[in-house]
């Protein structure tokens, strides 16, 4: 099992434990318990919540870091598209292609006709 899989399983277990410890059944089970037991239950519940938050943060930070490695490529892509759009807007560039098209067309027509 990889470290990532172990973390995922741990996180899944922590979430399930948190749901169990916040359930109405848990509250009913704590009814009539000693103050020490209730304090210990509160400590444990908040410790589970903190562990869950840390693991979630860790997982999301890992994905965030992976996403960041792609950002340079997206910026490059944006620049490329920007350039293509500029070219498209520059009528001269496109008309150059059109002129070639028309010239060829004219020659073909002249020859055939």
């Amino acid at each position: 099992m990889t470290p990532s899989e172990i973390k995922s399983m741990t996180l899944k277990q922590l979430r399930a434990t948190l749901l169990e410890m916040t359930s109405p059944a848990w509250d009913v089970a704590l009814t009539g318990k000693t103050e020490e037991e209730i304090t210990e239950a509160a400590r444990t519940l908040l410790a589970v919540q903190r562990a869950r938050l840390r693991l979630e943060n860790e997982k999301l930070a890992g994905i965030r870091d992976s996403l960041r490695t792609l950002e340079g490529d997206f910026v490059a892509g944006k620049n490329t598209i920007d350039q293509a759009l500029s070219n498209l807007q520059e009528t001269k560039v496109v008309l150059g292609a059109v002129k070639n098209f028309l010239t060829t067309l004219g020659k073909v027509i002249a020859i055939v006709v």
Partner: protein
Amino acid sequence: MKRHHLSLVLHVMLLLGLLFLGGCTAPRLQHFDSFSQAGIAYTEATEQVLNQALDSSMDTDTLLLVEQRSSLPVSERGQTIIDHNDSFKKRIVIFRDLHLHAKLLRSYFQLLKTLATSDAPSGIGTAAGKVVTTLVGLGDEIQTDVSLEDIVGTGTELIVAQFQNAALETELEARATTIERELALQEEVMREVGEGLRTDLLVALNRRESNEVVMPYGSENALPADWGETRKAFLQATLDSSTLDAATSAARELRLAFVALVEGRFEVADLAALNQDLARIVTLLEALNPQETEGEDDDTQ
């Protein structure tokens, strides 16, 4: 007569050629447009999900801290709140980074859409049409029902469409690996965020059921006058867990649509499932924030 016949045949051949060229290019541009639009819609939904997830996690954490406070020894309370705050300071930075990334991705999709739907061809086509006579000088010589200028005007637009298409194809080729990796990571983000959100919402529901329904019933005190209505309302308010999978599903649908686009087998209908997922996300967010939704409705009236 022969000359007229030849020119007519030539015009028809040219038209057919151009129509074929256009027939190949136009759908492809529409596919780029549809995919870009889906990408924009996805990133917008993503940002809303991120906002909701962060809000819900803070609300649930606050709820737990408040409820457990009286059970914690005074000496432990300070360190407890500091530890929880530290986790949220880190979380807020991570979510801010994810937001910034989503904005970058959205602006990329917006540029792709701009390129796919640029209206430059129409203006250029008109300008090019005027060049026909001076370049070729055949306008007066060829008399047919279809003018050469019409053909060239259409041809110019198709050339520009080809130009757009080529730029998009080049970008697609250059960025294919990055985009696919991005969308796979988006799927992971949405899965993790969705699971966290599911837990927070279920914890909140647990606490409501316990505090408003179960514990009052088990106490020695008289039941609140509205206890029956509260219980009924709680039992009827179920959390549709499948809705929380919509964000992950939307990311997957977008990735599959992208793969289809790369492989040239994309159909606009491929986005139907994605659109359904996005609609489910909107429904969920509206259900979670009824007051905000009502307020927005009021503003429009």
